[in-house]
């Protein structure tokens, strides 16, 4: 069990233990080093933002953490267990679940079914080929609650393919939450959402973070400043700095590389 030692920021505030931590994570794509020696600690009950210019390697870090692509070097541990060599589905079952940058739903299924699929496995109802479909009704209440949380309850019988882009993202988050993950990785959850949805979603994220760890990639700095406890800035595959939003946003290097003269 590694105890987080933070290079910057409010080290004096006692943080809960790191649920997910990575050490020396690196990835090379045929000579191009996309991620270099990244150390990361994600803590329980905190929202951790991963920001950085486009192409900095944020999505790649996500892919590495969830084992969707194998890392070139480094170790990852989840709740103290080493998951460096674990299969992606297994990692998900252990409680590390992600959403995708390009929205990912089951298009020809209704919203309710979308969420229910995610509920099936944790409830031991995934391999039952001998029971009737009706036996899944016990999951409906829970599924509906999740849809409600993202404001999609009224559309529960529509097909996911009929949704607009923004709503697909909302559905995806509901599906992800269905797994009740211990660590939630969100890749630009607010991208493409209308103004009206952004604040709802941001609220949702900080609420779910109360009893789990959240790591998110986000370009909407307003939201980052409002809901994220920790911010890690990635540049050219390397960690530029880590700290709270205040510290990070005043770092001249971060302003130059990422934020420009914009204020949240």
């Amino acid at each position, binding site marked *: 069990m590694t105890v987080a030692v933070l290079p910057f920021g409010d080290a004096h505030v006692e943080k809960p233990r790191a649920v997910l931590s990575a050490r020396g994570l690196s990835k090379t794509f045929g000579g191009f080093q996309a991620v270099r020696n990244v150390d990361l600690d994600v803590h329980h009950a905190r929202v951790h933002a991963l920001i950085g210019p486009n192409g900095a390697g944020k999505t790649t870090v996500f892919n590495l953490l969830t084992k*969707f692509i194998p890392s070139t070097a480094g170790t990852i541990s989840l709740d103290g267990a080493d998951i460096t060599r674990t299969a992606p589905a297994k990692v*998900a079952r252990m409680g590390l679940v992600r959403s995708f940058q390009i929205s990912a*739903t*089951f298009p020809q299924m209704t919203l309710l079914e979308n969420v229910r*699929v995610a509920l099936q496995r944790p409830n031991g109802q*995934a391999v039952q*080929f001998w029971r009737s*479909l009706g036996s899944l009704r016990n999951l409906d209440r829970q599924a509906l609650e999740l849809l409600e949380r993202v404001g999609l309850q009224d559309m529960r019988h529509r097909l996911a*393919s009929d949704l607009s882009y923004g709503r697909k993202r909302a559905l995806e988050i509901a599906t992800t939450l269905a797994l009740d993950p211990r660590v939630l990785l969100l890749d630009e959850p607010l991208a493409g959402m209308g103004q009206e949805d952004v604040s709802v979603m941001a609220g949702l994220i900080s609420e779910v973070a109360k009893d789990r760890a959240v790591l998110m990639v986000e370009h909407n700095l307003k939201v980052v400043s409002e809901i994220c406890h920790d911010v890690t800035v990635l540049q050219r595959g390397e960690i530029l700095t880590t700290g709270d939003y205040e510290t990070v946003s005043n770092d001249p290097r971060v302003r130059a590389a990422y934020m420009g003269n914009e204020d949240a």
Partner: protein
Amino acid sequence: MTETSLSQPFVGPAAGRAPLRLLAVCIGFAALVAAPMFFYPIFVMKILCFALFASAFNLLLGYTGLLSFGHAAFFGGAAYVTAHAVKVWGFPPELAVLAGVLGAIVIGAVIGFLAIRRQGIYFAMITLALSQMFYFFCLQAPFTGGEDGIQGVQRGKLLGFIDLGQTMNMYYFVLGIFLLGIFAIWRIVNSPFGAILKSIRENETRAISLGLSVNAYKLSAFVMSAAIAGLAGSTKALIFQFATLTDVTWQMSGEVILMTLMGGIGTLLGPVVGAGLVVTLQNVLATSEFPVTVITGATFMLCVLTFRRGIVGEIEAAIVRWKRR
């Protein structure tokens, strides 16, 4: 997306109200029980066999989205095992059928293990190639009797006292197997497991991220489909009392696809209707002037171009449209 998906969303049960559905099932059952009084029993049995085979195939294609071009291996393989079990080991019919199904499971597990590593068209090509390999195996293996096949397989006595040599006994035995198989498929499709299969078909990456070991699910579905196809093959060996190479050729794999396509991919009844049509067509063509392959080929093209949903699929769609109005 609706149009691009090979498998139609399942609309079957929605097509009628519960009492109506029950009535339809009863009429269907009565028709099957009475069929041998009006039609040539062997012919009806053959249709039942192929209907079961096509339904097994459809379990994979229609509900998992995997197009197998090698299902003949399970069908024909099981037939060989059953024939061999009866002829050489002296198994009673029920055990021989069981042996055939086990054989199909083994073959299915091996082929499936390799094939599920790729998707879509690759999957189709791999199953085709592997089943062709199995064909060569059957051709060259000493116990399959080469071109002659295993002939003169006795039907024996079911449970030691029902003489399957009697056509009617055999018919009801086959009918029983058919109903059992169809029920199994229906159950699998409309089960929690079936729902997972559907989600995998829709978006595999997402399914993985939800913690589902996608390959294990696919392999299970593949093996289930193989087992039921094997059940059909074993039964066929007993009906016709032989097992030959014809049932392991790639043309046979093609035929089962045609049956499913004609009847309606992803519908419960489609493969049954399709099998009935194709088998009847073959019999009609057998005494006509038309070259069979040309007709088969043309039917394939026509189905794909004009009524992809198949006969049952089109009817169901029409009912749904009509209801909306």
